[in-house]
């Protein structure tokens, strides 16, 4: 699903965010990306989502060479991904339903199909009864679940999450982890950037450790 070969990322100001990154994430695999703040976790996810472009090296995501995806193809490329953010990035002038429906509306899915799939996604994150609510009336954990529902409603092959539990307490973090594990069990490839060590310990999945932009440890999943 993801294949990085000697990938470098240098920002225009000369800062080297990623240095010589090599790793492969198989189809249906689940892994955590960890490291201290500024180690390059977010940058790595941004490269995968084509929010940033690699400076050097070869990156394949979902069988596509990222260097060959041009500006006009980026939207179609992103439709195969689901992305979850630390700050949820929900639209506060729209209901929960409309927020979750956005990726489908954008992709031109038919009306009836949208309603069906949005309800299925909300059901999965346990928020079916809040579809008419506005995000501002929800708790942090609920908002994050809405953003996960939005990330998975398009049935992506790959789910990316950047500090999904960064603003949540331990109990809510566990709930969110369970949701990700559930998607993993249904065959979705999942990559979560986090510095929440408890979360990583509980999940017992593969861990990629970044330090100063370099991949220093790659620990396999424990049974």
């Amino acid at each position, binding site marked *: 699903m993801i294949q990085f070969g000697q990938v470098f990322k240098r920002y225009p100001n000369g800062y080297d965010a990623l240095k010589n990154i090599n790793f492969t994430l198989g189809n249906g695999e689940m892994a955590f990306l960890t490291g201290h703040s500024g180690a390059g976790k977010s940058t790595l996810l941004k490269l995968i989502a084509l929010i940033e472009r690699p400076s050097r090296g070869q990156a394949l995501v979902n069988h596509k060479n990222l260097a060959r995806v041009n500006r006009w193809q980026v939207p179609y490329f992103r*439709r195969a991904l689901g992305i979850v953010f630390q700050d949820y*990035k929900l639209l506060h002038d729209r209901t929960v339903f409309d927020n979750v429906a956005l990726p489908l509306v954008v992709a031109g899915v038919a009306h009836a199909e949208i309603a069906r799939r949005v309800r299925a996604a909300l059901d999965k994150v346990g928020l079916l009864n809040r579809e008419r609510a506005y995000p501002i009336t929800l708790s942090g954990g609920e908002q994050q679940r809405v953003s996960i529902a939005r990330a998975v409603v398009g049935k992506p092959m790959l789910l990316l999450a950047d500090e999904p539990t960064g603003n949540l307490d331990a109990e809510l973090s566990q709930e969110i982890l369970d949701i990700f594990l559930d998607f993993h069990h249904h065959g979705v490839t999942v990559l979560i950037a986090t510095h929440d060590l408890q979360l990583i310990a509980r999940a017992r999945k593969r861990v990629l450790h970044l330090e100063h932009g370099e991949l220093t440890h790659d620990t396999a999943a424990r049974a």
Partner: protein
Amino acid sequence: MKRVHTWFLRHAQACVGSLGALVRAPLATLMTIAVIGITLAMPAAMIVAVDNVVELSSGFEGPGRISLFLKREVGDAEAAKVAERLRRRQEVAKVEVISRERAYDEFKQQSGFGEALAALERNPLPIVLVIHPSNDAERAATLEQLARELGRLEAVELAQLDLEWVKRLHAWLGVIERGVQIVGGLLAIAVLLIVGNTIRLAVLSRRDEIEVSKLVGATDAFIRRPFLYSGLAQGVLGALLAWVLVQASLWLLSAPVAELAGLYGSSFALGGLGADLSGALLAAGAALGWLGARLAVGRHLRAIEPR
């Protein structure tokens, strides 16, 4: 088939969505539409004014009258025959025959040379045929050609075309029309800027929405669409307002103009925006609204990328 259906559905969604956004901010929308309306009303009013001047000037008797001075040996009977033949021509609306005697009397009365004239043995003046060209021969070039042609007739000594003031009037109208075009062009640019600025603010105020939409795979076309519809709607509504403003102004002017025309013994009435001018006004509003939005969105959309 399904693709076409989806395409229409998406456009309908974007259209309804953008109209909804306009309705939700009624004051701002009305202000924008008012500015566009007034801006479009000015060139439209000027075009109507020029059209009316053209209409009025063509109503004057006499522009481009051709005077045919017949040869001295031509008598009244032959002059009447020539006049009759000329009347059958398509370019000729009316032929007036001024006999020697009438010319003599008029000259005696009006010129102040009456006594000098009386000293002559006989009437030196020729018969004159005054040709009033028909409307489709009104243009200066056609008139000149007609005058040259008539000048070659056997009975005619000299064909004189009194074109100077017609030419001057047309030259003036040419200058004014060009002026209207320049002002119209400038005001069109003003409309582009007005719409562009409104759309720019709309784009910036929806920054989050655009960023999130891009993150979940929205194409630029998808994001642009509601803004383009919004620009189009503002342009069309502005043009409608301009139409109302022009027609209302004409209505307000119609009574005084009728009174003025009455004093000159004319039944001239102001012409309004005809079907073609109304259509052109609406088309201009729609095109400028769309284009203004397109330029603004194109410029600002690229600046909003997810980070």
